């Protein structure tokens, strides 16, 4: 059996004396599309921060390619934060943000070169963002910014793409487009995609596996096996009904 690309083994997180997550375990393979789904405040972002090494878990371990996270295998993970904190009039073009994905963590200036330009163009093209390469990122819409951030993460050729609520605050059309872009990356470039979302429905067509987070615990597996009335009732600790209507899944709190 091959080593999984990412393994979480019994992860527990305490924040401010409160146990936020306990015993979260799952693994994913290359090219797999996984959604971390759960209600707001369930600990989805916390889980992503643990995988990124931004938050030290109180228990358990994270393995990337079978080894604990260190500076060398960090480049295997591309990260897309939830949102940009950039004002519209900041002098940063979409192109500049993507270029920072190449070597923004290094000292010194990134001198312009033809090779850099080609890599940036390639990354922008892979998410369909060439059209606004020269525009200021602050002036772009939420969906456009999301694409630029994905290109920023892709340019360092990660094996795993981690996205924090990439569909939050997007209009329906942009939401579908971003999901399609990510699905294509997983299928065609065999990049494992792990993203958090509070609604699983936009992802049902592309998602291979689900990690459902609620009540401090997580259940992982194929969507149909995890998202059942019995399974989620056990996870939430109170009765919930899973209702399927017109290819949509609704999780409804029971009495």
């Amino acid at each position, binding site marked *: 059996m091959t080593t999984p690309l990412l393994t979480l083994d019994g992860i527990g997180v305490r924040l401010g004396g409160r146990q936020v997550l306990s015993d979260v375990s799952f693994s994913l393979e290359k090219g797999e599309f996984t959604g971390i789904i759960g209600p707001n405040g369930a600990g989805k972002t916390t889980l992503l921060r643990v995988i990124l090494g931004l938050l030290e878990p109180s228990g358990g371990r994270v393995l990337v390619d079978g080894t604990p996270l260190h500076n060398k295998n960090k480049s295997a993970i591309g990260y897309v934060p939830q949102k940009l904190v950039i004002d519209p*009039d900041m002098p940063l073009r979409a192109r500049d943000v993507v270029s920072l994905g190449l070597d*923004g*963590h290094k000292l010194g200036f990134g001198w312009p070169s033809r090779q850099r330009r080609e890599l940036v163009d390639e990354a922008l093209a892979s998410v369909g963002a060439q059209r606004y390469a020269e525009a200021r990122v602050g002036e772009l819409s939420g969906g456009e910014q999301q694409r630029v951030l994905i290109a920023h993460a892709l340019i360092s050729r990660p094996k795993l793409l981690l996205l924090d609520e990439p569909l939050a605050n997007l209009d329906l059309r942009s939401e579908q487009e971003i999901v399609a872009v990510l699905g294509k990356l997983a299928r065609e470039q065999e990049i494992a995609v792990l993203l958090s979302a509070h609604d699983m429905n936009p992802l049902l067509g592309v998602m291979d596996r689900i990690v459902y987070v609620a009540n401090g615990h997580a259940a992982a597996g194929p969507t149909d096996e995890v998202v059942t009335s019995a399974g989620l009732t056990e996870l939430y600790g109170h009765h919930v009904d899973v209702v399927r209507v017109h290819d949509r899944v609704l999780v409804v709190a029971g009495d």
Partner: protein
Amino acid sequence: MHYLFEPGLFSSGPVRTALLVGAIVAVTSGVIGVFTVLRGQSFAGHSLADIATTGGSGAFLVGINQFWGFLVAGVAAAAVMEAIGVQRRRGRDVATGVVLGGALGLAALFLYLGTLRTATTGASFTVLFGSIFVINPDTVPALIASGAVALVVVAVLARVLLLTSVSPDLARARGVNVRLVGILYLAALAVSVSLAAVAIGAVLSTALLIGPSATALRLTKSPARAMAASALVGLVATWVGIVLAYDSYYWPPHGHTWPVSFFVVVLVLACYLLSYLRPRRRQVPRSPHEDEAECGPTTGGPETRLGAAHV
């Protein structure tokens, strides 16, 4: 020509020193100012200027060169601001505000005591509003070196500072020590503010830091161009300000030059206002669907920024 460049302008030692120091100050402030605005730290820059005033007036009281007073107080203040967490956006405004009030009060006391002792009322003016024509040529090498150090620090950190301004978490995930970068940047900012305090006064130093960069941000799209434009605007404002101040000797009231700081600040303001003449349009070609989506009920969340709203 004669009316702009009055006789003796370029043969005057103080004027040449002023032009040289003005250039160093303008370029340092212009480049560092771009990052200050990008990082949303204009208030930190202003706070450093207020505290530098205390340092400058303290130096005047004990009789040493004011630049050292500006510099020591500025760097110390940067360290304190880091300690109380000013790097978080809008971090600790209340604490900072109280400290700033105290610092300026102390400056008032130092200036008062200093004036009693030396009977030179001009010192308050020099500390608060600058004295680029009476810079001791001996301090020029120190001024050049300080400016160079601040510029080198920012040049070395340029990419990391940009990445951090896009998203601090993104930088952290790539292994950047965001806090250390912030401290080094604040130190460079303190040096830059001290230099500007020498040229146009501690109180006005923020004008050279923020004005040219704010102008440049309106006119350019990439960080490198913004830095170049900002340095250029600062340089032009400073040099033209020096020339006009020299000329003003022949303006009413005759026999007195107007303050350089006045001209520099007015020119910076003029450049900023002129930058509004350039119309700003969203340069992103829209795809057809976005226009329909705009009318849809699902758009308009806080992250859905549309350029038109900001014109």
